[in-house]
């Protein structure tokens, strides 16, 4: 930390329900070095300037999904966004868009969790297997069909990016639909027909208008827009053929 100390202005959108009726910006001056993340800037504020600033964080390595925020208006993980990118102009940090603010930079994640729970995010085996029979065989290519969609860290950046979710909270939303596709596309699973009940509904794939911003902001390359929109074709085919193909036919 030898470089001469630079100072950056960080504006934080504060909201303390016991104090404020609506969010207000508060400005802090933070000394920083080039290897400091935005999260470290916030930690500096909390440690030395104002202990009441609240935010979530844990891993510091872009894998736990806690630290999503709007940084200069874009949804980002604060632990892998660096202060140097905003110098000398300074930056503005707000809670993730489209979700209710509980306090400061903390949003209510309850809706996301409820939706995640609703899609049966677990393997319902096509052919049950005992432990003695060992693992299911799955070729690397079969694994590739879903692996990308299983990389979701539940950071909700895509929810903050998706205007359709912002406009209509009944929409299941990008991250959770990507996880639904992750299980449907897994060669071990046999329950896509069950899950697709939701997929086929207005709250499922059809709530998406292919804005595509979800995939742009996703820090893990999940591409939820693809997970959703590739299913629209399947859903349409199923819609028109469901009376001729009596059972399933969803894959």
């Amino acid at each position: 930390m030898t470089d001469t100390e630079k100072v950056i202005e960080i504006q934080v959108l504060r909201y303390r329900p016991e104090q404020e009726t609506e969010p207000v910006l508060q400005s802090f001056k933070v000394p920083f070095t080039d290897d400091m993340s935005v999260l470290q800037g916030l930690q500096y504020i909390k440690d030395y300037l104002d202990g009441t600033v609240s935010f979530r964080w844990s891993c510091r390595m872009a894998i736990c999904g806690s630290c999503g925020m709007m940084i200069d208006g874009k949804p980002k993980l604060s632990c892998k966004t660096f202060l140097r990118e905003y110098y000398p102009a300074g930056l503005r940090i707000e809670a993730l868009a489209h979700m209710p603010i509980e306090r400061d930079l903390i949003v209510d994640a309850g809706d996301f969790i409820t939706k995640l729970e609703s899609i049966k995010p677990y393997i319902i085996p096509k052919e049950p297997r005992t432990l003695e029979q060992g693992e299911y065989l799955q070729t690397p290519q079969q694994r590739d069909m879903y692996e990308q969609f299983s990389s979701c860290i539940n950071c909700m950046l895509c929810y903050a990016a998706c205007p359709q979710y912002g406009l209509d909270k009944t929409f299941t939303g990008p991250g959770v639909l990507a996880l639904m596709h992750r299980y449907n596309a897994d060669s071990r699973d046999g329950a896509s027909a069950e899950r697709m009940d939701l997929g086929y509904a207005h709250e499922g794939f059809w709530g998406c208008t292919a804005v595509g911003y979800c995939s742009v902001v996703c820090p893990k390359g999940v591409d939820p827009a693809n997970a959703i929109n590739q299913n629209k074709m399947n859903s349409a085919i199923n819609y028109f053929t469901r009376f001729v193909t009596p059972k399933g036919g969803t894959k």
Partner: protein
Amino acid sequence: MSKRRPYVRSMDGWWKRDAYFVKYMAREVTAVFVAAYAVVLLVGLVRLAQGQAAYEGWLAALKSPLSLVFHLVLLATFVYHTWSWFNIMPKTMPIMFVGGKRVQPGMITGAGLAAAVVACLAVLLIVRGVAS
């Protein structure tokens, strides 16, 4: 008892918040021009059914400077439509492999745009061929 009071922010004017949203809206707005063009053609068709005089009135209207400017705008929006259509195309396709290798999104967009160029040229050539 609980002191919780979650604050819900307004969505008003959301499309102005991010350059990405502006681009998305531009893509959606092309639909208005597609509709307009369909109406122009529909009017032409109805005129055609009403007889030669009516139809030629329509043809004459197409030649007016206002109509020409309007069609130039239409052309621009149609080109933008084509570009944006194939740009989101990769999102609408399942993951594909060719020779064990994942097909990249750029390739799908490129192929789509190439197909559009070929189709447009074909239309132009066929119309010319038939007409002369």
